[in-house]
């Protein structure tokens, strides 16, 4: 009896309505970034990242998105420069192995467009951002895409001699395409 009394509240809690969980399809998802180096555009990407998505288009107030990026998976496809990324002036991967994003509010703009407000943390620096997201559905897969412009110096990306923005521009476009299973009809 005592056990049941203990377990009952737990069972009730578990049954509380929470936006259903979706799963990320890593093979169809991409997370990349583009920046300019002396006028020349350079593209990079992260090959390892995970997402916890509780998204219900009909229940936005209880919907949540959380993201974790494996910083060591960053690559520009250029071995010489990739060797620089984990160093202290750049990602300082040993000290900050993950970048994260946690949403605080999701707003619908109509037409499958959303604004996801949340905290972006890179290299130990947290910033409030608003991420524009466009969603499209094809069968069981929902794809969320968007571009978030950030300033690299705000996150201490490129310290010391690399802080010179005439060398590497401050503006970085973070581009994402997340394929999700289990999203309700938009």
């Amino acid at each position, binding site marked *: 009896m005592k056990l049941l009394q203990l377990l009952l509240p737990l069972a009730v809690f578990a049954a509380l309505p929470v936006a259903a969980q979706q799963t990320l399809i890593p093979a169809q998802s991409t997370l990349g970034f583009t920046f300019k180096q*002396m006028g020349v555009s350079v593209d990079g990407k992260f090959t390892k990242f995970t997402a916890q998505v509780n998204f219900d288009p009909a229940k936005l107030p209880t919907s949540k998105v959380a993201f974790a990026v494996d910083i060591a998976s960053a690559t520009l496809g250029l071995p010489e420069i990739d060797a620089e990324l984990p160093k202290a002036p750049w990602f300082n991967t040993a000290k900050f192995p993950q970048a994260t994003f946690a949403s605080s509010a999701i707003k619908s703009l109509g037409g499958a467009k959303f604004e996801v407000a949340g905290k972006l943390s890179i290299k130990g620096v947290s910033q409030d951002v608003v991420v524009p997201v466009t969603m499209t559905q094809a069968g069981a897969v929902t794809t969320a895409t968007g571009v978030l412009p950030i300033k690299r110096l705000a996150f201490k990306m490129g310290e010391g*001699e690399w802080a010179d923005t005439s060398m590497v521009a401050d503006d970085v476009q973070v581009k994402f395409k997340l394929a999700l299973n289990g999203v309700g009809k938009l």
Partner: protein
Amino acid sequence: MAVVLHWVLGLAILGMFGVGVYMTDLPFSPWRVKLYNWHKWAGVTILALSIWRLVWRLTHRPPALPQVIVLGMPAWQTRAYHATHYAMYALFFTVPLIGWAYSSAAGFPIVWFGQIPLPDMLPVDKEFAALIKPLHQISAFALVGLAGLHTAAALKHQLIDRDGLMQRMLPGRG
């Protein structure tokens, strides 16, 4: 005009050769990125000026060699001078074009002076880039080698033959 282009391009090419040799030995740093970009911008400028140089050369015959010099030169020297000049003109274009192709294939489009994006000569292909990279270096060394031979020959005429041949290339006549 031919005289001006000759000296400007000669100095530019030698300068860029020096920068090229120096910059590839540097460890990765903002300074190296700067040098690489300046080297490319200068290379494209050299290419553009070389086109102008070639057009000018094809439309303006240089003065004929003085008879005394023509008579004084053995046939092999005449052949050598023609061959060297043809080869140098060919390399004026080959060296920067391979450099541009290498940069494109390696995934670094060239933005001239950081302002004007130039078309990619080739799609990105890292393996191909690795293949042609040595060609840029080899052809650059060949060009500088020929320039050295060219300079030595000019000095031979000036100091050994004392035939005043160099006069026609000195500023004040262009």
